[in-house]
């Protein structure tokens, strides 16, 4: 079926007004040899058939709310999303609107983004937030771009911790391809125990940015105050990639004096959805606002004296500045910024702290139980947040296969990114994992350790 509401009679009347004889007539600019190809696609389904087909496809997955017990994290987390979030997102006025270029009839979106910006600033302890990036990884890459712009290309070195998410590091590498920028510090074969101190010696007066993750990819929580100070002392900027759930509990990057905080907003009310769409958040100091990428909403008044909101500092953006824009981003993750605003409004300080603590305690319970299994141990010590690295004493892939037979997604196999960690699983625990589930994992792993 189509969604075209023009009858044959109306079509003919319209063609007459245009002065065309047929629909085909309208396409005479298209080279005749290539005009009207026959598309080899399956015949149209009606809505009823499409609904059934998509249900079949969805059912042929095994999902994490009933089919499988999941301890997978590594950048996408199984959190509870309160029902009210999606009820807001389903408001047609929100999701069928475009970017709020016409503020008089877009105050819903504009105020919601303004609130999102405020919430993200408050959460990260920073002064300004933009209206979102595609995801945490691209937000990190945009942090590199911003640092590049800040030094007008005069500094070209980025120090990256090896315990930044491997996919984020890969994306940064993709983004800088044409920029002549050098990345140092993130050798996956290097010493992973070293922690942030090891980065300090890499920072020099060519360094434009230091990029660390908090909690890091292995779940560890480091206080980056010192390395950030070291960056500042060399005139470099520091960016902290952060899991926003952790900020319900932990010291903010703002308190550590970070210049930029980025991360993925998925834990804030966005379903895992096989990895996307999520949102990338980006907060910084007010002094960098003109170098910042992405849209910004600012407060103002309308000509009736009403408080209102508009897109502001648009001269940074591609539609004005074109090749000299701070970024090429146009469509962003607006609706998911709304989701995060609703999520944070619903949880508030009490709720977010509760979620963070549940994650923390459950992960620690799991870690302690798992480390007690003969032959297994925690790879790194405390403090960690809701993810930790378990050394299995045998190939992680084997163990995971065993767990899957028990209906368990056992965690992320770190050997995929760190050749030295072939026997290691990155295990994530959230408020969704009951003690019973954790105990099931422990039992299944104990069993595996006996094989």
């Amino acid at each position, binding site marked *: 079926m*189509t*969604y075209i509401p023009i009858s044959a009679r109306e*079509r003919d009347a319209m063609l007459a007004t245009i002065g065309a004889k047929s629909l085909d007539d309208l396409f005479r600019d*298209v080279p005749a040899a290539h005009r009207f*190809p026959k598309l080899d*696609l399956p015949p149209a389904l009606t809505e009823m058939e*499409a609904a059934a*087909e*998509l249900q079949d496809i*969805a059912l*042929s*997955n095994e999902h994490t709310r009933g*089919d499988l017990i*999941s301890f997978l994290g590594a950048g996408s987390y199984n959190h*509870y999303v309160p029902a009210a979030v999606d009820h*807001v997102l389903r408001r047609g006025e*929100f*999701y*069928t609107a*475009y*970017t*709020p270029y016409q503020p*008089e009839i877009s105050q*819903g*979106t504009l*105020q919601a*983004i303004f*609130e999102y910006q*405020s*919430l993200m*600033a408050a959460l990260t302890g920073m002064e300004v*937030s933009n209206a979102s990036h595609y995801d945490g990884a691209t937000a990190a890459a945009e942090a590199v771009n911003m640092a590049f712009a800040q030094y007008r290309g005069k500094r070209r070195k980025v120090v990256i911790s090896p315990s930044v998410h491997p996919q984020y590091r890969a994306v940064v590498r993709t983004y800088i391809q044409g920029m002549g920028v050098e990345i140092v510090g993130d050798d996956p074969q290097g010493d992973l125990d070293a922690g942030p101190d090891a980065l300090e010696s890499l920072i020099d007066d060519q360094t434009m940015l230091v990029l660390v993750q908090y909690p890091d990819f292995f779940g560890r929580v480091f206080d980056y105050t010192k390395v950030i100070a070291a960056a500042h002392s060399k005139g470099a900027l520091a960016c902290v990639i952060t899991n926003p759930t952790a900020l319900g509990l932990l010291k*903010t990057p703002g*308190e550590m004096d970070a210049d930029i905080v980025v991360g993925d907003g998925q834990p804030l009310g966005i*379903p*895992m*959805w*096989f*990895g*996307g*769409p999520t949102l990338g958040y980006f907060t910084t100091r007010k002094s960098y606002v003109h170098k910042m990428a992405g849209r910004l909403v600012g407060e103002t008044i309308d000509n009736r004296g009403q408080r*209102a909101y508009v897109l502001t500092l648009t001269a940074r953006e*591609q539609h004005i500045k074109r*090749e000299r*824009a701070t970024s*090429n981003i*146009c*469509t*962003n*993750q607006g609706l*998911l910024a709304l989701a995060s605003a609703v999520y944070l*409004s*619903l*949880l*508030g*300080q*009490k709720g977010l702290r509760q979620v963070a603590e549940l994650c923390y*305690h459950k992960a620690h319970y799991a870690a302690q139980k798992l480390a007690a299994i003969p032959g297994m141990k925690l790879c790194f010590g405390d403090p960690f947040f809701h993810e930790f690295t378990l050394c299995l004493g045998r190939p992680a892939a084997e163990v995971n296969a065993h767990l899957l037979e028990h209906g368990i997604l056992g965690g992320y196999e770190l050997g995929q990114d760190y050749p030295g960690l072939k026997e290691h699983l990155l295990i994530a625990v959230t408020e969704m994992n009951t*003690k019973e589930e*954790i105990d099931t994992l422990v039992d299944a792993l104990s069993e595996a350790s006996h094989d």
Partner: protein
Amino acid sequence: MTETTVAVSPKIVEPTIFDLSSTGRTGVTFPEPDVPLAKLPTSLLRKDLPLPELAEVDVIRHYTRLSTFNYGVDSGFYPLGSCTMKYNPKINEDTCRLPGFLFTHPLQPVETVQGNLALMYQLQEWLQEISGFPAITLQPAAGAHGEFTGVLIMRAYHRARGDAKRIKMLIPDSAHGTNPASAGMTGLQIVQIPSDARGNVDLEALKAACDDTVLGMMLTNPNTLGLFDEHILDVTKIVHDCGGLMYGDGANLNALLGIVRPAELGFDIMHFNLHKTFAVPHGGGGPGSGPVGVAAHLADFLPAPLVDIVEEGSDDTPPLFGFVTPKQSIGRMKAFHGHFGGGMVRAFTYIAMHGPDGLKDISQYAVLNANYLMARLRKAYHVPFDRTCMHEFVAEGRFEGSDVRALDVAKRLMDYGFHPPTNYFPLIVHEALMIEPTETENKDTLDAFVDALLKIAEEAKSQPSLLHDAPLTTKFGRMDEVKAARELVLCCWLPENGIADI
């Protein structure tokens, strides 16, 4: 006597979520821990958590009210040129929320997510068939992200051939801002190519610009004037002849479904905007989804990973889908696999429901509607490039002997219940009003829109103040943009204040 300015505090139509906060409220609570408590890392705890506190009812009322300050496609006609604001079928909202999609983790073993992978594979194939490109990546998050992907691929292609001297990207003056911005992100020089009097690429200028320093050209076709380039085959040939690659900005693909395959016109690479052509809703700014298709010679450079069949099926077993990495991949454009749930599932549903004939209908009727509007409006609004348009066209929002501008026309349309067209883009038309009706609007709506615009054209002469002051009937009036940029109040919370009371 000193002069004092009394600051009149603005009227608050709807308080912010911070304004509404009150200590002790919460919108949702979580279970008590069912495990023993671990010691918290005291020195690493945050001092305070300055988030607002509200009950669920307050949150729902607040955002419900905010939503009513918005205008969406569900509210009415939204002829925003270049944005393809077609109706978003409701079934898509349901299919993309099926639990099997919502709750799958991107790193699950492929055996457990064959449904997702099959859907992605199928979508890749469909986009190939529609566009003529033999390989597709679904990873890019939006159009601009697709452009950037494309430019990186073009760059990698030339370098793989050992040709590093190509440092220029040709871009027409009518191009969307993301085109130069995307090229700029890879350090390329932008060479602007003028348009000719009929709105085509100026072939002489193009030839003059073409040499062995040209990486390629980024072209939107139909272009942002809504015009199909009359010499498109010449354009692509000229660029190819100098060794350059042709990048197609697929934002305007809604004009071409079943009409022509862009690959057959000589494009080497193109992004799709699933959020335009394939009815993924725009979400008040996003998320979108910007897959990229490439010709065979560029397939090896696609970002990783792609979905492919990793074990052929047989009569009684389906094939096994998995991820593969192209040989000379430019790398990863984002974490995980692209905008699966919000983008691909909706677009898949949409294409499945249209089939080959339905897709062709989309483009035919999108073009019919645009030409109909143009035909009815051209007497009152000057159409600078007055020939058969594709899915959109550009008129001028100015009138002889009147100081009314396109902006005023746009704002006045709001009073008639319509969303304004895009204005001041493309940059090469004065006071541009870029009108894209899409195929999902009926004739009654189009006629009512024309009537309003004709009325406004009269008002522009008889009562211009009506336009200058417009909108008058909306909840909010024109904005003080200068104040916003000068005062830069970008959030209602600041570290030094805790929760600001405005």
